[in-house]
């Protein structure tokens, strides 16, 4: 049965909303397939505004992989702004995809990518607008009867935040941990087989198959019990054939998975306008605060030739003028200098800029600086020492010396950059006022050294601060989060210290956010299933777009947490500022990122005692984090010794008549 586009009903409303272009689709490289020529259909939701969601690599990759398959269709949907939400409700128009403007409720699967926990309330808006019951338990099919009521899409979450999906467990049918490339294809295969077999067991039967054969975590198949003091007693399967622990997915040969090849080129302005290629996935630097580095192990590099091919194809398919070499620490690629040099050679004279969004201070060097600057463009350089004092950097295992940092930044200034951004965190475990005030001293030294090496006074450095939030699957998962009042007070002192010396005042910029949103992020990061009631209460009270300061309301979260947790022995502080013991059952304890809990605990103890620097296992001995043996994976790095072919212009040149 064909599914009709809602566009004719939507179009008359578009002149009445802000940013109508975000809802019309039709972008270069977008795909609209014939509904009836496909039998497995995915809607992919990024639960934030179009301008943020569109460049998301995860969604772009899965969109392309799924649409490449015969008989499979994938369309994108994003969170609508409140003005559009009101109009959709007023006119009875459901949540729709921007590709075919098809109702999300008509798809087989709604895949949701969570980069951050602050998208949880937006998930509820999308479900509600789609006509999908908020609670998975209300979506039918539990008793295995395929004829019990309408079909609702399976709501399956992925992304980094999904490594602790417990706060939204009640709203999800399934969760995929880790890399999605192969997982979405396996799930697609099972859905097709289930449909062809006459939908045995209904919704419940399909979910059991996905749990048993595709390593999909189905929260409804697990029961959580609690101790009288509020801590979790245990999380156990409630049926046969359900594994007690669910492992993450890992794609091992990234050279075989060259996506995105043809990323979508937005017409609307979005947060990143560039062709991005992951040059490697995973990170073993061992920064203790970094969830991404812990859950994406091991390091798997793309070879220089694959990177070159992907960049050539991607630039040709999009027309982007900037190429981003993405990873968690891009300068750590075993052949980064060769990649940067060969790409700069290939793009000489084409006004194509290269950027390295995550660059470690100690891995940046003069070769990279020159290559990045060669084609004229100097996009922003950001370095992240994270901790202001040497002691703080030891605690978080980000071993950058002050000399390293100053040498690196002056290299950048000497190579023509006038502005460098330095990123730090505030609220780290064991942090004192002195650790934060050390940031001001560091910034002054950077400017002073920069002025000396360039002979100029117009160089600038911007100090940018984020609030630290302890994350699951990291050595800091047991830590007490720093109260927001303490973070705010330290930032005020830092601001005063930065302004204190007029000789540097204007050369140093200072950017920070207040500490309150971090508390909510902390609640959602390390929360358990009881936090779901708080999220729902906030959403029912009008909470939307919590990642946007103009929409976020701390007071609403506090009030709703008080009200929703009134009957429980736990509260907002219990989830955030409370330190956990080694023997506490953590909400994500049954979800396996491969990390050995004993190693994580030992690393946490070493952080507290200030000893035990952990070196990167790419270059030194294995430190037994546990990932490779438990997941059956291994580090894949070069060097390959290969180079990109010389003298090739990777941009097409129009034949001239």
């Amino acid at each position, binding site marked *: 049965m064909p599914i009709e586009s809602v*566009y004719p009903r939507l*179009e*008359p409303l*578009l*002149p*009445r909303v802000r940013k*109508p*272009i975000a809802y*019309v*689709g*039709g*972008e*270069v490289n977008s795909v609209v397939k014939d509904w009836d020529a496909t039998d497995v259909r995915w809607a992919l939701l990024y639960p934030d505004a179009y301008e943020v969601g569109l460049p998301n690599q995860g969604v772009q990759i899965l969109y392309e992989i799924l649409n490449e398959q015969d008989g499979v269709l994938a369309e994108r949907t994003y969170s609508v702004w409140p003005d559009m939400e009101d109009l959709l409700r007023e006119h009875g128009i459901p949540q729709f995809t921007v590709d075919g403007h098809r109702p999300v409720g008509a798809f087989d699967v709604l895949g949701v990518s969570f980069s951050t926990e602050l998208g949880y309330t937006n998930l509820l808006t999308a479900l509600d607008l789609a006509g999908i019951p908020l609670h998975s338990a209300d979506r039918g099919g539990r008793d295995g009867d395929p004829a019990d009521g309408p079909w609702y899409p399976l709501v399956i979450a992925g992304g980094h935040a999904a490594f602790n999906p417990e706060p939204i467990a009640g709203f999800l049918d399934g969760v995929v941990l880790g890399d999605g490339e192969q997982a979405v294809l396996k799930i697609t295969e099972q859905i097709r087989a289930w449909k062809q077999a006459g939908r045995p067991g209904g919704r419940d039967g399909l979910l059991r198959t996905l749990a048993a054969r595709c390593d999909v975590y189905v929260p409804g198949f697990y029961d959580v019990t609690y101790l009288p003091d509020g801590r979790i007693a245990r999380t156990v399967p409630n049926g046969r054939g359900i594994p007690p622990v669910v492992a993450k997915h890992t794609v091992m040969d990234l050279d075989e998975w060259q996506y995105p090849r043809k990323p979508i*080129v937005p*017409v*609307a*302005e979005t947060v990143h*306008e560039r062709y991005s290629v992951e040059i490697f996935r995973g990170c073993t630097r061992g920064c203790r605060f970094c969830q991404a580095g812990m859950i994406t192990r091991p390091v798997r590099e793309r070879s220089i030739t694959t990177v070159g091919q992907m960049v050539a194809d991607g*630039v*040709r*398919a*999009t*027309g*982007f*003028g900037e190429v981003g070499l993405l990873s968690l620490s891009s300068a750590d690629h075993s052949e980064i200098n060769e990649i940067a040099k060969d790409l700069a050679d290939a793009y000489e004279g084409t*006004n194509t800029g290269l950027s390295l969004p995550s660059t470690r201070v100690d891995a940046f060097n003069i070769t990279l600086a020159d290559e990045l600057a*060669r084609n*004229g*463009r*100097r996009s922003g350089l950001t370095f992240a020492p994270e901790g202001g004092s040497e002691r703080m950097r030891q605690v978080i295992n980000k071993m950058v010396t002050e000399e390293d940092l100053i040498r690196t930044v002056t290299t950048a200034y000497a190579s*023509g950059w006038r502005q460098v951004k330095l990123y730090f965190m505030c609220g780290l475990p064991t942090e004192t006022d002195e650790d934060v005030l050390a940031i001001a001293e560091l910034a002054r030294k950077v400017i002073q050294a920069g002025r000396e090496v360039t*002979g*100029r006074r117009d160089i600038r450095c911007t100090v940018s601060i984020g609030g630290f939030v302890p994350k699951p699957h990291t050595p800091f998962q047991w830590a007490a989060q720093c109260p927001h009042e303490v973070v705010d007070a330290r930032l005020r002192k830092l601001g005063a210290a930065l302004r204190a010396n007029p000789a540097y005042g204007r050369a140093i910029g200072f950017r920070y956010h207040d500490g309150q949103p971090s508390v909510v992020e902390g609640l959602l990061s390390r929360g358990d299933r009881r936090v779901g009631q708080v999220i729902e209460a906030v959403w029912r009270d009008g909470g939307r777009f919590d990642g946007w300061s103009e929409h976020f309301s701390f007071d609403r979260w506090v009030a709703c947490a008080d009200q929703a947790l009134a009957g429980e022995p736990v509260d907002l502080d219990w989830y955030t500022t409370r330190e956990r013991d080694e023997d506490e059952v953590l909400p994500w304890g049954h979800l396996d990122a491969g990390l050995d809990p004993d190693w994580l605990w030992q690393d946490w103890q070493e952080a507290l005692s200030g000893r035990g620097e952990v070196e990167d296992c790419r270059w030194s001995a294995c430190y037994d984090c546990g990932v490779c043996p438990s997941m059956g994976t291994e580090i894949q790095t070069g060097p390959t010794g290969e180079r990109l072919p010389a003298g090739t212009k990777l*941009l*097409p*040149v*129009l034949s*001239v*008549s």
Partner: protein
Amino acid sequence: MTAQQSAQKNRPTGPAPAPAVQQLLVRYAKRGRMRFASHRDVGRAFERAVRQAGLPMAHSAGFSPHPKISYASGTPTGVSSEAEYLTLLLTVATDPAGLRPVLDRALPDGIDVIEVVEDSGGSLNGRLMVSEWLVQLPGVTPDAATAAARAFLDASEVPVERLTNKGIRRFDARAAVLTLDVSPCPGAQPDHACAMIRMVVRHTEPAVRPEDVLNGLLPGGTAALSSAPAVTRVAQGVLGPEAGSREVVAPVPATVLPAVVTPDKVNVP
């Protein structure tokens, strides 16, 4: 270090950008759903399209070189157009006719390149003095629209207001309007009132947009309409050479443009 050395240091090293040898004039349309693209959105789409199409673009100098594209002022977001203009500066002389389909393919459907011709140069705005607009007003009878148009043309001044980024702006909508012709919307159902207004409006400062004219013409303005009016710019250029001409003559020969633009087809996505 001398001031001169210091100034030089702030410039990118390497050769100066290649000089432009050819200027092309591009006429393009903004159709269907792409009418919701803002002027900036269209600009970015063209910047990427000239790269994707491999055009030998001239670039500005400096640390952030940009392809040399000059845009005439665009239609407001939400308004369609069959007559938008921009110029491109190229470093290698290129056949304009062969370039049209290449550029068009690199743009999203709905931002459509109609014609590319070699251009003698000079500013675009001096050659784009008037526009012809087609407006469809659902829910308004042709008789009512005719009476309103007559009253508008008879007035010496029609003050209107528009909300801009700088607050509410008041100005006269009458003086810029050269013609207003009313007819029934082509293809409208007999039981659905729908008036079509063809208007020729001079480019002035502040710009008088079709919406401003409608706000001065309709009781209650466009806000009182049951649904938003469909507006299309069908031509842009200068007035014809004869004295008193109200014909809009395009700066590009309109050989590719369909003879008649059917308004009800213009806004279908």
